[in-house]
C-alpha cells in the first residue's frame, strides 16, 4: 500500500462538483509531503472536467469516458473505480459525501476489502495516520476515527466543511482509461432524472428556517426573509405576534400554538423570544438571532447573535451567502 491519496470527482450533467477542491485540500493534509494525490473522473464530460483540477498539484488525473459509464450506475462505477484503486494502491480514497459518494463508496469498500468512514466533517493526519471526524447519533456527538492496519480507507467528506484547496504551480498528467465494462452487465440502470418540484418545504420539515417577528412591520417585508430562505433552500417562519398582526399566515407560525420545528439552522429576525416561541424552535441545531434589542430573551437561547436592525442585517447576510454559492 502506498501513501498516496486517490480523489474521486463526481460528475453530474457533465459538470464536476466543486467538492473535489475540498477533497484535494483534505488529500494534501493526508499526504503531507509523503504521498501523491491522483484523481479519477468517470462519466460524460470527464475529459473537459479534468481541466478544472489541472493546476492543483495532482500527480495524475485518470479520465474514464466509456459509453457504458456515461451516466452513473453503482455497479459500473464501482467496478471501474475498484480496478483503478487496485492498480494504484492508494492509502486513502476520498469522495464527497453526496448521494453518489455514499452509494459508490459502500460498494467499492467491499470490493477492495477496505474500511469506509462516511460523512466526515474533518480529516487530518496525526503521526502519519488519518484521523477523521464524523457526526454520530444524528449529529448529537462526534467521533474521531482512524483505520487500523494496512488497509485502504474510503473517506466520504461532507461538502462545505473542509476549506477548498488553492491552486498551485505545475501541471498534471491526464490519462484516459478504458474500463472495459459491458453495459449489459449493469443490473440497475438510471432511466431518467426528475428534477424536484419547486416550492419551499413545509416549515415543520425544513432544514433551514428564517423566521420573522413583529418587527417586520408589514407582510410585504417578509420578502426580505424569503430571498434569504430561498438561497438556503429553507422555509419561512413567523412568530405569533407577526401572525396575529397579519404579517404572515398561520401556517408559518412557529411556537406553542403554531408548529414545533427542528431545523439545522434557525435564523430569528426581529423576534423577541417569548417562551411560547422558544417552545417551538428550541431544539434547532443552530440558532441565530438578529434583534435591535440586546436584552431580548432570544439571545439567551441563540448560539449566535447580532444586535442590529434586521432591515440592515438580513440583506447583507443574503449577499454574503450568495457569495458562498
Amino acid at each position, binding site marked *: 500500500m502506498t501513501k498516496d491519496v486517490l480523489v474521486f470527482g463526481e460528475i453530474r450533467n457533465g459538470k464536476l462538483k466543486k467538492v473535489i477542491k475540498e477533497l484535494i485540500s483534505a488529500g494534501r493534509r493526508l499526504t503531507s509531503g509523503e504521498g501523491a494525490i491522483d484523481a479519477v473522473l468517470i462519466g460524460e464530460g470527464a475529459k473537459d472536467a479534468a481541466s478544472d483540477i489541472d493546476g492543483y498539484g495532482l500527480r495524475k488525473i485518470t479520465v474514464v469516458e466509456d459509453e457504458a459509464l456515461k451516466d452513473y450506475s453503482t*455497479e459500473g462505477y464501482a467496478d471501474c473505480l475498484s480496478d483503478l484503486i487496485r492498480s494504484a494502491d492508494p492509502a486513502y480514497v476520498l469522495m464527497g459525501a453526496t448521494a453518489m459518494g455514499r452509494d459508490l463508496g459502500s460498494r467499492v469498500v467491499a470490493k477492495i476489502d477496505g474500511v469506509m468512514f462516511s460523512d466526515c466533517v474533518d480529516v487530518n493526519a496525526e503521526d502519519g495516520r488519518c484521523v477523521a471526524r464524523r457526526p454520530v447519533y444524528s449529529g448529537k456527538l462526534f467521533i474521531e476515527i482512524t483505520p487500523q492496519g494496512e488497509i485502504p480507507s474510503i473517506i466520504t467528506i461532507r461538502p462545505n466543511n473542509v476549506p477548498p484547496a488553492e491552486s498551485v504551480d505545475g501541471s498534471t498528467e491526464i490519462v484516459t482509461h478504458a474500463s472495459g465494462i459491458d453495459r449489459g452487465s449493469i443490473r440497475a440502470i438510471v432511466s431518467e432524472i426528475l428534477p424536484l418540484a419547486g416550492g419551499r418545504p413545509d416549515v415543520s420539515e425544513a432544514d433551514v428556517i428564517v423566521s420573522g417577528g413583529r418587527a417586520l412591520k408589514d407582510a410585504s417585508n417578509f420578502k426580505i426573509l424569503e430571498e434569504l430562505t430561498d438561497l438556503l433552500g429553507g422555509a419561512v417562519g413567523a412568530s405569533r405576534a407577526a401572525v396575529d398582526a397579519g404579517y404572515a399566515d398561520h401556517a408559518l407560525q412557529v411556537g406553542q400554538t403554531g408548529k414545533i420545528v427542528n431545523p439545522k439552522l434557525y435564523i430569528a429576525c426581529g423576534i423577541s423570544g417569548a417562551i411560547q416561541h422558544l417552545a417551538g424552535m428550541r431544539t434547532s441545531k443552530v440558532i441565530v438571532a438578529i434583534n435591535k434589542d440586546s436584552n431580548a430573551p432570544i439571545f439567551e437561547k441563540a448560539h449566535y447573535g447580532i444586535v442590529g436592525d434586521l432591515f440592515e442585517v438580513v440583506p447583507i*447576510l443574503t449577499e454574503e451567502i450568495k457569495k458562498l454559492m
Partner: protein
Amino acid sequence: MKIIVLLKRVPDTEAKILINQNGDGIREEGIKFVINPYDEYAIEEGLLLRDKVGGDSKVTVVCMGAEEATENIRTALAMGADDAVHICDPALKKPGPLTSATVMAKAIKDEGYDIIFCGKQAIDDDMAQVQGIMAEILDIPQVNVAVKFELSDDAQNVILQRRIEGGDEKIEARLPAIISCEKGLNEPRYASLPGIMKAKKKEIRTKSLADLGFDDVPGGGKSRILKWLPLPKGGECRMVEAEEISDAVGELVRLLREEAKVL
C-alpha cells in the same frame, strides 16, 4: 415472494445522548431503544409488497442485536411481519458495517430471498454502508435512498425513484436487489392491537455466530474510535460585533460555515 427486511435497534431520536463515564461510548441507562426510524419505512414497504403480490409471500425481519432487541423485533411482527431471524451473540459487541453486512448476508442467504429492504442509514452510527457491502457480498444490485417503489409487471424488476441532490433518479433494477428506504417512501403503520396479539405467536429464530458458520467475528478490527466528542457547549450566545454591520455579518457567515458548519 420472500421479502427480507433489515432491522436495527437504536436509541430513540428524542433521547438525550451523552458520552459515558469511560468516554468510549454513550450513556445507555434511561434511554429508550426503538426500531431505527428508517427501518420502519423498510418494514412498511415490505408489508405493502407482500400484500400486493399475495400468494405465499412472506416478510421476514432480520435483526442483528443484543437480546433486548427481541422487543423491537416483536414490534415489527406486530406491524405485520410474518417471522424473524434474530442474530444474537455475546461476541458481537457494537459491530461495524462490514461485520454486520457479512453476518446478516449469511443469514439471509440461508433464509433465501427475492428482495431486501433496509433503512438508508442507522441513526446511531449513521454509516449507511451495510446495504452496499451486503449487495457486493450477495452480488446483487443496490438502490439507495428510495422515495418511490414499484414492482414491475413481470415481477422480475423493481422500478424506483432515488433521491439525489436537486432531484430524483428513476432507476430500474433487476431482482434480487437490496433497496434502502428514505423518509417519504411511505407512511409506516402503527402496530395495531390485533397485530400486537398476533405477534406473540409469530416465530423468532435466534442464531448465534456458530449457527451461521462463523468461528469468530468476521470483518472486525479495521478501524478504531480514538475519541468521542460532545457538541460544543450551548451556554453563552456568541454575540458577533464589529465596527461595521457588514463586517459583523461577514464574521457571522464565517462562523456559521466553519464553526457551526451549517452553511
